[in-house]
Protein backbone atom coordinates (compact mmCIF):
# COMPACT_ATOMS: atom_id res chain seq x y z
CA UNK A 1 0.00 0.00 0.00
CA UNK A 2 1.39 3.39 -0.96
CA UNK A 3 1.92 5.77 1.91
CA UNK A 4 0.42 9.20 2.29
CA UNK A 5 3.69 10.50 3.67
CA UNK A 6 7.10 10.88 2.06
CA UNK A 7 8.87 10.00 5.32
CA UNK A 8 10.62 6.65 5.31
CA UNK A 9 10.74 4.73 8.55
CA UNK A 10 12.66 1.54 9.19
CA UNK A 11 10.72 -0.79 11.47
CA UNK A 12 12.99 -3.28 13.22
CA UNK A 13 11.00 -6.15 14.64
CA UNK A 14 12.85 -7.38 17.72
CA UNK A 15 10.03 -9.03 19.61
CA UNK A 16 7.16 -7.60 21.53
CA UNK A 17 3.80 -8.48 20.14
CA UNK A 18 3.97 -11.77 18.34
CA UNK A 19 1.49 -12.90 15.77
CA UNK A 20 1.85 -16.57 16.52
CA UNK A 21 4.85 -18.88 16.90
CA UNK A 22 5.57 -19.08 13.15
CA UNK A 23 5.73 -15.33 12.64
CA UNK A 24 8.28 -14.45 9.95
CA UNK A 25 9.46 -11.66 7.68
CA UNK A 26 6.90 -12.37 4.97
CA UNK A 27 4.08 -12.18 7.52
CA UNK A 28 5.56 -9.01 8.98
CA UNK A 29 5.72 -7.39 5.53
CA UNK A 30 2.14 -8.37 4.79
CA UNK A 31 1.00 -7.06 8.13
CA UNK A 32 2.76 -3.73 7.58
CA UNK A 33 1.39 -3.45 4.08
CA UNK A 34 -2.14 -4.01 5.41
CA UNK A 35 -1.71 -1.63 8.33
CA UNK A 36 -3.58 1.32 6.97
CA UNK A 37 -2.93 3.22 10.18
CA UNK A 38 0.85 2.99 9.86
CA UNK A 39 0.89 3.82 6.17
CA UNK A 40 -1.04 7.01 6.93
CA UNK A 41 2.02 8.39 8.66
CA UNK A 42 5.05 7.05 6.84
CA UNK A 43 6.47 4.58 4.37
CA UNK A 44 7.26 1.83 6.82
CA UNK A 45 9.78 -0.81 5.76
CA UNK A 46 10.21 -3.77 8.10
CA UNK A 47 13.26 -5.78 9.12
CA UNK A 48 12.94 -9.01 11.02
CA UNK A 49 15.66 -9.07 13.68
CA UNK A 50 14.55 -11.14 16.66
CA UNK A 51 11.64 -13.41 17.47
CA UNK A 52 11.72 -15.03 20.86
CA UNK A 53 10.76 -14.69 24.48
CA UNK A 54 11.54 -11.28 25.95
CA UNK A 55 13.36 -12.82 28.90
CA UNK A 56 15.75 -14.58 26.52
CA UNK A 57 16.95 -11.42 24.74
CA UNK A 58 20.78 -11.37 24.66
CA UNK A 59 23.03 -8.29 24.92
CA UNK A 60 23.95 -9.01 21.31
CA UNK A 61 20.51 -7.90 20.12
CA UNK A 62 21.50 -4.27 20.64
CA UNK A 63 24.58 -4.91 18.52
CA UNK A 64 22.54 -6.46 15.72
CA UNK A 65 20.11 -3.57 15.76
CA UNK A 66 22.99 -1.09 15.70
CA UNK A 67 24.51 -2.81 12.66
CA UNK A 68 21.24 -2.61 10.71
CA UNK A 69 20.78 1.03 11.65
CA UNK A 70 24.36 1.84 10.66
CA UNK A 71 24.02 0.07 7.31
CA UNK A 72 20.72 1.77 6.50
CA UNK A 73 21.24 5.10 8.24
CA UNK A 74 21.06 7.26 5.12
CA UNK A 75 18.10 5.41 3.65
CA UNK A 76 15.56 6.27 6.36
CA UNK A 77 14.25 9.30 8.22
CA UNK A 78 13.93 7.39 11.46
CA UNK A 79 13.99 3.97 13.09
CA UNK A 80 11.38 2.20 15.19
CA UNK A 81 12.15 -0.93 17.19
CA UNK A 82 9.54 -3.25 18.64
CA UNK A 83 10.77 -5.05 21.73
CA UNK A 84 9.37 -7.11 24.56
CA UNK A 85 8.93 -5.33 27.88
CA UNK A 86 11.38 -7.79 29.42
CA UNK A 87 14.85 -6.41 28.71
CA UNK A 88 13.68 -3.36 26.73
CA UNK A 89 15.47 -0.99 29.08
CA UNK A 90 18.73 -2.95 28.78
CA UNK A 91 18.62 -3.25 24.98
CA UNK A 92 17.62 0.39 24.45
CA UNK A 93 20.24 1.69 26.90
CA UNK A 94 23.01 -0.36 25.35
CA UNK A 95 21.96 0.76 21.88
CA UNK A 96 22.06 4.39 23.05
CA UNK A 97 25.77 3.91 23.84
CA UNK A 98 26.41 2.01 20.63
CA UNK A 99 24.74 4.65 18.43
CA UNK A 100 25.83 8.03 19.72
CA UNK A 101 25.30 11.42 18.13
CA UNK A 102 22.76 10.07 15.67
CA UNK A 103 20.92 12.80 13.78
CA UNK A 104 17.75 10.76 13.40
CA UNK A 105 15.36 9.29 15.97
CA UNK A 106 15.61 5.67 17.09
CA UNK A 107 12.43 4.85 19.00
CA UNK A 108 11.67 1.71 20.97
CA UNK A 109 8.15 0.60 21.67
CA UNK A 110 6.91 -2.20 23.85
CA UNK A 111 4.37 -4.83 22.96
CA UNK A 112 0.70 -4.18 22.37
CA UNK A 113 -0.07 -6.49 25.25
CA UNK A 114 1.74 -8.61 27.84
CA UNK A 115 2.79 -12.00 26.58
CA UNK A 116 0.59 -14.04 28.90
CA UNK A 117 -2.46 -12.06 27.73
CA UNK A 118 -1.26 -12.47 24.19
CA UNK A 119 -1.38 -16.25 24.46
CA UNK A 120 -4.91 -16.12 25.85
CA UNK A 121 -5.87 -13.71 23.10
CA UNK A 122 -4.58 -16.04 20.38
CA UNK A 123 -6.30 -19.04 21.93
CA UNK A 124 -9.60 -17.19 22.01
CA UNK A 125 -9.38 -15.81 18.50
CA UNK A 126 -7.98 -18.94 16.83
CA UNK A 127 -7.24 -16.93 13.71
CA UNK A 128 -4.84 -14.24 12.55
CA UNK A 129 -5.69 -10.97 14.19
CA UNK A 130 -5.53 -7.49 12.78
CA UNK A 131 -3.69 -4.66 14.42
CA UNK A 132 -6.93 -2.93 15.38
CA UNK A 133 -8.04 -5.84 17.51
CA UNK A 134 -5.52 -4.92 20.18
CA UNK A 135 -7.39 -1.72 20.83
CA UNK A 136 -8.83 -2.44 24.24
CA UNK A 137 -5.56 -3.43 25.82
CA UNK A 138 -3.33 -1.40 28.06
CA UNK A 139 -0.29 -0.50 25.97
CA UNK A 140 -2.12 -0.04 22.74
CA UNK A 141 -1.12 2.51 20.19
CA UNK A 142 2.57 2.48 21.05
CA UNK A 143 3.64 1.55 17.56
CA UNK A 144 1.66 4.34 15.94
CA UNK A 145 3.11 6.78 18.47
CA UNK A 146 6.62 5.49 17.86
CA UNK A 147 6.29 5.80 14.07
CA UNK A 148 4.93 9.33 14.40
CA UNK A 149 7.77 10.32 16.75
CA UNK A 150 10.27 8.83 14.32
CA UNK A 151 8.99 11.19 11.62
CA UNK A 152 9.27 14.27 13.85
CA UNK A 153 12.10 16.71 14.44
CA UNK A 154 14.18 14.88 17.02
CA UNK A 155 17.28 12.73 17.15
CA UNK A 156 16.70 10.83 20.36
CA UNK A 157 17.23 7.21 21.20
CA UNK A 158 13.98 6.91 23.12
CA UNK A 159 11.40 4.55 24.53
CA UNK A 160 7.65 5.11 24.34
CA UNK A 161 6.31 4.49 27.84
CA UNK A 162 2.58 5.03 28.26
CA UNK A 163 1.81 8.60 27.26
CA UNK A 164 5.46 9.67 27.28
CA UNK A 165 8.62 9.46 25.24
CA UNK A 166 11.62 8.87 27.47
CA UNK A 167 15.33 8.95 26.67
CA UNK A 168 16.49 5.32 26.52
CA UNK A 169 19.13 5.92 29.18
CA UNK A 170 16.43 7.24 31.51
CA UNK A 171 13.99 4.34 31.11
CA UNK A 172 13.78 1.85 33.96
CA UNK A 173 11.74 -1.03 35.22
CA UNK A 174 8.94 -0.09 37.57
CA UNK A 175 8.68 -2.08 40.78
CA UNK A 176 6.42 0.26 42.73
CA UNK A 177 3.31 0.88 40.67
CA UNK A 178 1.08 -2.14 39.94
CA UNK A 179 0.10 -2.54 36.31
CA UNK A 180 2.93 -0.42 34.96
CA UNK A 181 6.01 -2.23 33.75
CA UNK A 182 8.19 0.75 32.98
CA UNK A 183 8.93 4.11 34.45
CA UNK A 184 11.56 6.78 33.96
CA UNK A 185 14.45 8.13 35.94
CA UNK A 186 14.39 11.76 37.10
CA UNK A 187 10.95 12.22 35.49
CA UNK A 188 12.34 13.76 32.32
CA UNK A 189 9.72 13.22 29.63
CA UNK A 190 10.87 14.10 26.12
CA UNK A 191 7.35 14.20 24.75
CA UNK A 192 3.80 13.96 25.93
CA UNK A 193 1.37 11.93 23.94
CA UNK A 194 -2.05 13.31 24.41
CA UNK A 195 -4.25 14.20 21.45
CA UNK A 196 -1.15 14.76 19.39
CA UNK A 197 2.51 14.33 20.23
CA UNK A 198 4.15 17.35 21.77
CA UNK A 199 7.94 17.30 21.88
CA UNK A 200 9.48 19.22 24.75
CA UNK A 201 11.91 21.99 23.90
CA UNK A 202 14.95 20.18 25.30
CA UNK A 203 14.60 17.31 22.84
CA UNK A 204 17.67 16.93 20.63
CA UNK A 205 16.84 18.13 17.11
CA UNK A 206 17.69 16.33 13.89
CA UNK A 207 21.13 17.13 12.51
CA UNK A 208 23.44 16.24 9.64
CA UNK A 209 26.57 15.52 11.71
CA UNK A 210 28.12 12.09 11.37
CA UNK A 211 26.81 9.58 13.89
CA UNK A 212 29.21 7.46 15.92
CA UNK A 213 28.41 3.76 15.72
CA UNK A 214 30.35 1.48 18.01
CA UNK A 215 28.77 -1.87 18.63
CA UNK A 216 31.59 -3.38 20.68
CA UNK A 217 30.66 -4.72 24.07
CA UNK A 218 31.65 -7.45 26.50
CA UNK A 219 29.02 -9.54 28.16
CA UNK A 220 31.38 -11.49 30.44
CA UNK A 221 30.22 -9.40 33.34
CA UNK A 222 29.16 -10.76 36.72
CA UNK A 223 26.20 -8.83 38.08
CA UNK A 224 25.59 -9.16 41.82
CA UNK A 225 23.03 -7.94 44.31
CA UNK A 226 24.10 -7.54 47.93
CA UNK A 227 21.90 -8.84 50.73
CA UNK A 228 22.44 -10.42 54.17
CA UNK A 229 24.65 -13.50 53.95
CA UNK A 230 25.26 -13.01 50.22
CA UNK A 231 28.45 -14.69 48.98
CA UNK A 232 30.83 -13.92 46.13
CA UNK A 233 33.89 -16.01 45.44
CA UNK A 234 34.97 -14.60 42.10
CA UNK A 235 38.73 -14.15 42.37
CA UNK A 236 39.51 -16.97 39.96
CA UNK A 237 36.60 -16.57 37.54
CA UNK A 238 36.99 -15.41 33.96
CA UNK A 239 35.02 -12.19 34.02
CA UNK A 240 35.88 -8.95 32.26
CA UNK A 241 34.22 -6.93 35.00
CA UNK A 242 32.00 -7.16 38.06
CA UNK A 243 28.97 -5.01 38.66
CA UNK A 244 27.54 -4.93 42.17
CA UNK A 245 24.32 -3.31 43.27
CA UNK A 246 25.85 -2.42 46.59
CA UNK A 247 25.03 -1.19 50.05
CA UNK A 248 25.05 2.55 50.70
CA UNK A 249 27.96 2.75 53.15
CA UNK A 250 30.36 -0.15 53.00
CA UNK A 251 29.35 -1.17 49.46
CA UNK A 252 29.54 -4.96 49.88
CA UNK A 253 30.32 -7.52 52.62
CA UNK A 254 33.94 -7.93 53.60
CA UNK A 255 33.71 -11.69 52.98
CA UNK A 256 33.40 -11.11 49.21
CA UNK A 257 36.42 -12.52 47.41
CA UNK A 258 36.81 -10.30 44.35
CA UNK A 259 39.61 -10.20 41.76
CA UNK A 260 42.03 -7.25 41.85
CA UNK A 261 42.85 -7.05 38.15
CA UNK A 262 39.46 -6.29 36.58
CA UNK A 263 37.08 -3.33 37.04
CA UNK A 264 34.55 -3.69 39.85
CA UNK A 265 31.74 -1.17 39.50
CA UNK A 266 29.56 -0.68 42.58
CA UNK A 267 26.17 0.91 42.09
CA UNK A 268 25.87 2.86 45.31
CA UNK A 269 25.87 6.30 46.84
CA UNK A 270 28.54 5.25 49.31
CA UNK A 271 32.08 6.58 49.37
CA UNK A 272 34.20 3.84 50.90
CA UNK A 273 36.57 2.53 48.24
CA UNK A 274 37.86 -0.91 49.13
CA UNK A 275 40.45 -1.46 46.43
CA UNK A 276 42.12 0.32 43.50
CA UNK A 277 40.04 -1.58 40.95
CA UNK A 278 36.77 -0.74 42.71
CA UNK A 279 34.84 2.41 41.85
CA UNK A 280 31.38 3.77 42.53
CA UNK A 281 28.68 4.53 40.03
CA UNK A 282 25.81 6.79 41.09
CA UNK A 283 23.43 9.43 39.73
CA UNK A 284 22.40 7.13 36.93
CA UNK A 285 19.58 4.67 36.40
CA UNK A 286 20.52 1.11 37.54
CA UNK A 287 19.68 -0.70 34.29
CA UNK A 288 21.49 1.99 32.30
CA UNK A 289 24.55 1.65 34.53
CA UNK A 290 24.67 -2.10 33.85
CA UNK A 291 24.29 -1.60 30.08
CA UNK A 292 26.88 1.16 30.08
CA UNK A 293 29.37 -1.05 31.96
CA UNK A 294 28.88 -3.80 29.38
CA UNK A 295 29.53 -1.28 26.58
CA UNK A 296 32.47 0.44 28.27
CA UNK A 297 34.22 -2.89 28.81
CA UNK A 298 34.00 -3.39 25.05
CA UNK A 299 35.97 -0.17 24.56
CA UNK A 300 38.77 -0.75 27.06
CA UNK A 301 39.96 -3.07 29.78
CA UNK A 302 42.09 -0.38 31.44
CA UNK A 303 40.56 0.11 34.87
CA UNK A 304 41.26 3.86 34.98
CA UNK A 305 39.72 4.39 31.53
CA UNK A 306 36.71 2.28 32.45
CA UNK A 307 36.20 4.37 35.57
CA UNK A 308 36.57 7.59 33.58
CA UNK A 309 34.11 6.54 30.87
CA UNK A 310 31.59 5.35 33.46
CA UNK A 311 31.66 8.85 34.97
CA UNK A 312 31.15 10.70 31.67
CA UNK A 313 27.79 11.65 30.26
CA UNK A 314 27.82 9.83 26.93
CA UNK A 315 24.16 9.37 26.01
CA UNK A 316 22.14 11.60 28.31
CA UNK A 317 22.32 9.14 31.17
CA UNK A 318 23.13 11.67 33.92
Amino acid at each position, binding site marked *: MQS*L*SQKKICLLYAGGTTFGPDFNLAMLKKWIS*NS*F*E*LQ*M*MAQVEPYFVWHGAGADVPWDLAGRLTTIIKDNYKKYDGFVITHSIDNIVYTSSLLAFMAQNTGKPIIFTGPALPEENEQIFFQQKKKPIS*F*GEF*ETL*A*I*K*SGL*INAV*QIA*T*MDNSEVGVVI*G*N*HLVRATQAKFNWDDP*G*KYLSFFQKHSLA*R*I*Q*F*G*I*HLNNYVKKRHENDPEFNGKFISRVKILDVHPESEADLANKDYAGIFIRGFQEQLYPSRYNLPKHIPVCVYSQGTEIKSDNVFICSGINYETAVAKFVWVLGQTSDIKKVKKLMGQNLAGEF
Partner: protein
Amino acid sequence: MIIYLQDPQKTEAATLLVKSGVQLWQKPQDAGPMDTWDQININPLERVDGLLLEITKADAQINYLLAQAILLQKETLCFFEKSNPPRPLLMYLRRKNVPRSIQIKSYCKNNLKDTLYKFVKSIKPTLQIAEVPNIKYTLRMTESLENYLNWKSQHGKINKADFIRDNLKKIMEEDQDYFKWRNK
Protein backbone atom coordinates in the same frame (compact mmCIF):
# COMPACT_ATOMS: atom_id res chain seq x y z
CA MET B 1 -21.00 13.20 24.87
CA ILE B 2 -17.37 14.13 24.18
CA ILE B 3 -16.09 15.10 20.75
CA TYR B 4 -12.47 15.79 19.90
CA LEU B 5 -12.14 18.63 17.40
CA GLN B 6 -9.03 19.41 15.35
CA ASP B 7 -9.78 22.54 13.40
CA PRO B 8 -6.69 24.34 12.07
CA GLN B 9 -8.90 26.38 9.72
CA LYS B 10 -10.68 27.85 12.74
CA THR B 11 -14.18 27.43 11.33
CA GLU B 12 -17.32 28.02 13.35
CA ALA B 13 -17.36 24.34 14.32
CA ALA B 14 -16.28 24.86 17.93
CA THR B 15 -18.86 27.59 18.54
CA LEU B 16 -21.66 25.59 16.94
CA LEU B 17 -20.86 22.43 18.85
CA VAL B 18 -20.51 24.11 22.24
CA LYS B 19 -23.82 25.90 21.69
CA SER B 20 -25.46 22.61 20.86
CA GLY B 21 -24.42 21.16 24.20
CA VAL B 22 -21.61 18.85 23.05
CA GLN B 23 -18.59 18.60 25.36
CA LEU B 24 -15.65 19.58 23.21
CA TRP B 25 -11.98 18.61 23.66
CA GLN B 26 -9.53 20.56 21.55
CA LYS B 27 -6.38 20.89 23.60
CA PRO B 28 -4.70 18.69 26.22
CA GLN B 29 -6.02 20.75 29.15
CA ASP B 30 -9.61 20.07 28.07
CA ALA B 31 -9.18 16.42 29.05
CA GLY B 32 -8.09 17.29 32.57
CA PRO B 33 -4.75 16.80 34.32
CA MET B 34 -2.24 14.68 32.41
CA ASP B 35 -1.37 12.83 35.62
CA THR B 36 -4.84 11.31 35.64
CA TRP B 37 -4.25 9.77 32.21
CA ASP B 38 -0.79 8.63 33.25
CA GLN B 39 -2.32 6.82 36.22
CA ILE B 40 -4.61 4.75 34.04
CA ASN B 41 -2.03 4.61 31.27
CA ILE B 42 -4.30 5.42 28.37
CA ASN B 43 -4.49 8.08 25.71
CA PRO B 44 -7.42 10.47 26.34
CA LEU B 45 -8.52 9.95 22.73
CA GLU B 46 -9.84 6.59 23.89
CA ARG B 47 -12.47 8.36 25.96
CA VAL B 48 -13.99 10.52 23.25
CA ASP B 49 -17.16 9.47 21.46
CA GLY B 50 -16.00 10.77 18.12
CA LEU B 51 -13.53 12.94 16.28
CA LEU B 52 -14.10 15.89 14.02
CA LEU B 53 -11.10 16.66 11.83
CA GLU B 54 -10.94 19.67 9.53
CA ILE B 55 -8.69 18.30 6.78
CA THR B 56 -8.63 21.10 4.20
CA LYS B 57 -4.94 21.60 4.89
CA ALA B 58 -4.06 18.08 5.96
CA ASP B 59 -0.72 17.63 7.65
CA ALA B 60 1.23 15.05 9.65
CA GLN B 61 -0.81 15.80 12.77
CA ILE B 62 -4.07 15.06 10.94
CA ASN B 63 -2.61 11.84 9.55
CA TYR B 64 -1.58 10.79 13.06
CA LEU B 65 -5.01 11.55 14.51
CA LEU B 66 -6.65 9.64 11.68
CA ALA B 67 -4.38 6.67 12.34
CA GLN B 68 -5.34 6.76 16.02
CA ALA B 69 -9.02 7.11 15.16
CA ILE B 70 -8.85 4.06 12.90
CA LEU B 71 -6.97 2.05 15.48
CA LEU B 72 -9.40 2.98 18.21
CA GLN B 73 -12.37 2.45 15.89
CA LYS B 74 -13.73 5.90 16.70
CA GLU B 75 -16.47 7.50 14.64
CA THR B 76 -14.70 10.26 12.74
CA LEU B 77 -15.83 12.98 10.40
CA CYS B 78 -13.20 14.47 8.10
CA PHE B 79 -14.63 17.72 6.80
CA PHE B 80 -13.09 20.06 4.26
CA GLU B 81 -13.88 23.24 2.34
CA LYS B 82 -15.82 22.32 -0.78
CA SER B 83 -13.81 24.78 -2.85
CA ASN B 84 -10.46 23.54 -1.57
CA PRO B 85 -10.38 19.74 -1.30
CA PRO B 86 -7.21 18.00 -0.04
CA ARG B 87 -6.97 15.66 -3.03
CA PRO B 88 -4.15 13.27 -1.98
CA LEU B 89 -5.74 12.60 1.42
CA LEU B 90 -9.22 12.21 -0.11
CA MET B 91 -7.91 9.68 -2.62
CA TYR B 92 -6.38 7.80 0.27
CA LEU B 93 -9.50 7.88 2.40
CA ARG B 94 -11.74 6.75 -0.44
CA ARG B 95 -10.02 3.39 -0.74
CA LYS B 96 -11.92 0.20 -0.12
CA ASN B 97 -10.10 -0.75 3.05
CA VAL B 98 -10.87 2.45 4.93
CA PRO B 99 -13.19 1.59 7.83
CA ARG B 100 -16.77 2.81 7.74
CA SER B 101 -16.17 4.70 10.94
CA ILE B 102 -14.31 7.31 8.87
CA GLN B 103 -16.73 9.66 7.10
CA ILE B 104 -15.76 12.37 4.63
CA LYS B 105 -17.85 15.47 3.92
CA SER B 106 -17.27 18.73 2.14
CA TYR B 107 -18.81 21.86 3.57
CA CYS B 108 -19.49 25.46 2.72
CA LYS B 109 -20.41 28.24 5.10
CA ASN B 110 -24.15 27.60 4.73
CA ASN B 111 -24.15 23.89 5.51
CA LEU B 112 -21.39 23.50 8.09
CA LYS B 113 -23.88 23.40 10.95
CA ASP B 114 -26.00 20.69 9.31
CA THR B 115 -22.91 18.66 8.44
CA LEU B 116 -21.65 18.71 12.02
CA TYR B 117 -25.04 18.09 13.63
CA LYS B 118 -25.77 15.13 11.35
CA PHE B 119 -22.46 13.57 12.38
CA VAL B 120 -23.06 14.17 16.07
CA LYS B 121 -26.57 12.73 15.77
CA SER B 122 -25.20 9.70 13.93
CA ILE B 123 -23.05 8.87 16.95
CA LYS B 124 -25.79 9.42 19.48
CA PRO B 125 -29.27 9.57 17.89
CA THR B 126 -30.91 10.30 21.25
CA LEU B 127 -28.84 13.41 21.76
CA GLN B 128 -30.99 16.50 21.97
CA ILE B 129 -29.01 19.15 20.20
CA ALA B 130 -29.72 22.49 21.77
CA GLU B 131 -30.68 24.53 18.75
CA VAL B 132 -29.85 28.17 18.81
CA PRO B 133 -32.74 30.47 17.80
CA ASN B 134 -30.76 32.61 15.44
CA ILE B 135 -33.33 33.10 12.68
CA LYS B 136 -34.93 36.50 12.99
CA TYR B 137 -38.72 36.39 12.72
CA THR B 138 -41.01 39.42 12.50
CA LEU B 139 -44.54 38.66 13.60
CA ARG B 140 -47.59 40.95 13.76
CA MET B 141 -49.92 40.29 16.72
CA THR B 142 -53.52 41.14 17.52
CA GLU B 143 -54.15 43.37 20.52
CA SER B 144 -55.68 40.52 22.54
CA LEU B 145 -52.74 38.18 21.83
CA GLU B 146 -50.34 40.91 22.84
CA ASN B 147 -52.25 41.46 26.10
CA TYR B 148 -52.09 37.77 26.81
CA LEU B 149 -48.35 37.61 26.08
CA ASN B 150 -47.72 40.57 28.36
CA TRP B 151 -49.73 38.96 31.15
CA LYS B 152 -48.05 35.57 30.67
CA SER B 153 -44.61 37.14 30.62
CA GLN B 154 -45.21 39.01 33.88
CA HIS B 155 -46.96 36.22 35.77
CA GLY B 156 -45.17 33.21 34.26
CA LYS B 157 -41.67 34.67 34.62
CA ILE B 158 -40.85 33.77 31.02
CA ASN B 159 -40.02 36.11 28.23
CA LYS B 160 -42.47 36.39 25.39
CA ALA B 161 -40.17 34.96 22.72
CA ASP B 162 -39.38 31.86 24.82
CA PHE B 163 -43.06 31.32 25.52
CA ILE B 164 -43.91 31.38 21.82
CA ARG B 165 -40.95 29.16 20.91
CA ASP B 166 -41.72 26.60 23.68
CA ASN B 167 -45.33 26.27 22.63
CA LEU B 168 -44.51 26.06 18.95
CA LYS B 169 -41.93 23.34 19.72
CA LYS B 170 -44.51 21.41 21.75
CA ILE B 171 -46.99 21.54 18.86
CA MET B 172 -44.26 20.44 16.44
CA GLU B 173 -43.17 17.49 18.60
CA GLU B 174 -46.74 16.20 18.79
CA ASP B 175 -47.42 16.62 15.08
CA GLN B 176 -47.10 13.08 13.66
CA ASP B 177 -48.06 14.22 10.17
CA TYR B 178 -45.11 16.60 10.16
CA PHE B 179 -42.66 13.85 11.16
CA LYS B 180 -44.06 11.49 8.55
CA TRP B 181 -43.57 14.17 5.95
CA ARG B 182 -40.06 15.05 7.15
CA ASN B 183 -38.88 11.46 7.19
CA LYS B 184 -40.03 10.69 3.65
